[in-house]
């Protein structure tokens, strides 16, 4: 009697060769600090779009070992403010051609991203988001609870749960990708174009001479550079201090979790701000889940277990079918949060020193767009159009881009 057991297809293999492991040269045209997704993408686009290949990406740990390896891999561009829609939509368009351009499988899967609304005021702010996307020409649909159920049958749309689903925005072009494969794709492509990827190389000091950056001290000695670009999410404050200026960022733990491999029950990405959980089911079948940050500053790359428990209780209200799934693994990244929950990009008070930071909990989706626009900014030594609104001086003028979630709960 042959027994039918549920299987999952094995992922294809990574290529035979990934990247060289050179020790650092004495000097480079551009040093990128941080070999996370944004740092690697920046180096790739510097080489690919501007022919600047005398570039080193310095990583204190192992490549893509920071937030790039610790996120819930959600991709979308249906943000509220025009400036956010700009950079995130550019990023989504780059995602759509990325695997082919870089020549690396990334499991980029436009399976749609649904953002649920759970109260009248929540409905109102999601609807405004929906209409903002319409005028910004970003594909976004409005779903009734029944339409939510049709796309994701496992969602509990019953009216007598504590916070019933009243509707949702849905971006069909949104989706997920596999974070390691994205990072290694960019790394391999950059390495093949001549960029030096240097791991186990920690920056100790950003050397500045009369207002201009000249290089960095590392545990592998001093490396001089004409330009230095910071892309070390979570550690931006530490690096800026080394260069003698301050940034309005706070580093917070952001946790994520996975289950074991399970039968496929969810084919789209579902986010619920009011109930604090977002979830997708990865290709092999593990549930990937995340929520908000822990409440205090930390560089410990871990968070409190109560945050996980709270998120799982919310998940079971929304998806009762998950009740028997097992929590298999939890981990935490260090995200840098700006006062208006928007990135801080572009030039800094130090000449030829550039900043790419503040992506908070939304960095993964911005990886291609951030790298592309940041490379352009570095190459031309001026902020690209998409980067300009995110300059440091917005905090002096007061022109913030507040993506905290529009309306508080009132009346």
């Amino acid at each position, binding site marked *: 009697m042959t027994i039918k057991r549920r299987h999952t297809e094995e992922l294809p293999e990574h290529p035979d060769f990934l990247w060289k492991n050179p020790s650092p040269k004495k000097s480079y045209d551009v040093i990128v600090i941080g070999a996370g997704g944004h740092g690697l993408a920046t180096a790739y686009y510097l080489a690919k779009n501007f022919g600047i290949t005398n570039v080193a990406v310095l990583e204190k740990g192992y490549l893509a070992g920071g937030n790039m390896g610790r996120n819930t891999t959600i991709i979308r561009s249906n943000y509220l403010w025009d400036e956010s829609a700009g950079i995130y939509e550019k990023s989504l368009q780059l995602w759509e051609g990325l695997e082919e351009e870089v020549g690396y499988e990334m499991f980029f899967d436009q399976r749609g991203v649904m953002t649920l609304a759970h109260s009248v005021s929540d409905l109102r702010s999601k609807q405004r988001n929906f209409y903002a996307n319409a005028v910004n020409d970003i594909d976004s649909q409005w779903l009734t609870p029944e339409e939510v159920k049709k796309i994701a049958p496992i969602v509990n749309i019953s009216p007598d749960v504590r916070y019933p689903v009243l509707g949702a925005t849905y971006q069909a072009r949104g989706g997920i990708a596999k974070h390691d494969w994205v990072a290694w794709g960019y790394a391999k492509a950059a390495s093949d174009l001549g960029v030096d990827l240097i791991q186990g190389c920690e920056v100790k000091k950003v050397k500045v001479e009369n207002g201009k950056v000249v290089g960095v001290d590392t545990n592998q000695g001093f490396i001089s550079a004409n330009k230095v670009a910071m892309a070390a999410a979570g550690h931006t404050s530490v690096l800026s201090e080394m260069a003698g200026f301050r940034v309005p960022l706070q*580093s917070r733990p952001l946790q994520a979790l996975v289950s074991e491999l399970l039968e496929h029950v969810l084919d789209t990405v579902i986010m619920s701000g009011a109930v604090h959980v977002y979830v997708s089911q990865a290709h092999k079948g593990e549930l990937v889940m995340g929520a908000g940050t822990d409440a205090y*500053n*930390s560089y410990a790359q871990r968070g409190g277990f109560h945050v996980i428990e709270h998120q799982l209780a919310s998940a079971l209200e929304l998806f009762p079918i998950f009740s028997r799934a097992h929590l298999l693994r939890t981990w935490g990244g260090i995200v840098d949060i700006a006062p208006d929950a928007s990135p801080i990009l572009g030039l800094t008070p130090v000449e030829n020193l550039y900043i790419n930071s503040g992506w908070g909990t939304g960095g993964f989706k911005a990886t291609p767009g951030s790298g592309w626009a940041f490379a352009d900014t570095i190459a031309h030594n001026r902020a690209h159009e998409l980067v300009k609104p995110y300059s440091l001086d917005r*905090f002096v003028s007061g022109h913030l881009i507040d993506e905290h979630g529009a309306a508080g709960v009132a009346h």
Partner: protein
Amino acid sequence: MLLINCPWCGPRDETEFHYGSEAHIGYPEKPEELTDKQWAEYIFYRNNPKGWFAERWVHNVGCRRWFNIWRNTVTHQFGPSYKPFTKQPSRPK
């Protein structure tokens, strides 16, 4: 789950507190005399050290008092907690 020593109630779980980030940031004497840059420093800029940090918490579900405390943002070890407007203990080793 951090165990935070409220100067009045003793050690309690972190879920009983609300975080106030960097301690000792005073409301400027004469806001109207500050430049926009100085005013932005007060509103938006807080230190974000990797290591020992003098920060403030409020025991908002307990005695509802604000207090300051040393904490290492890498190891989550705590130094002494101290009441507002009292002498700050030196930075732990």
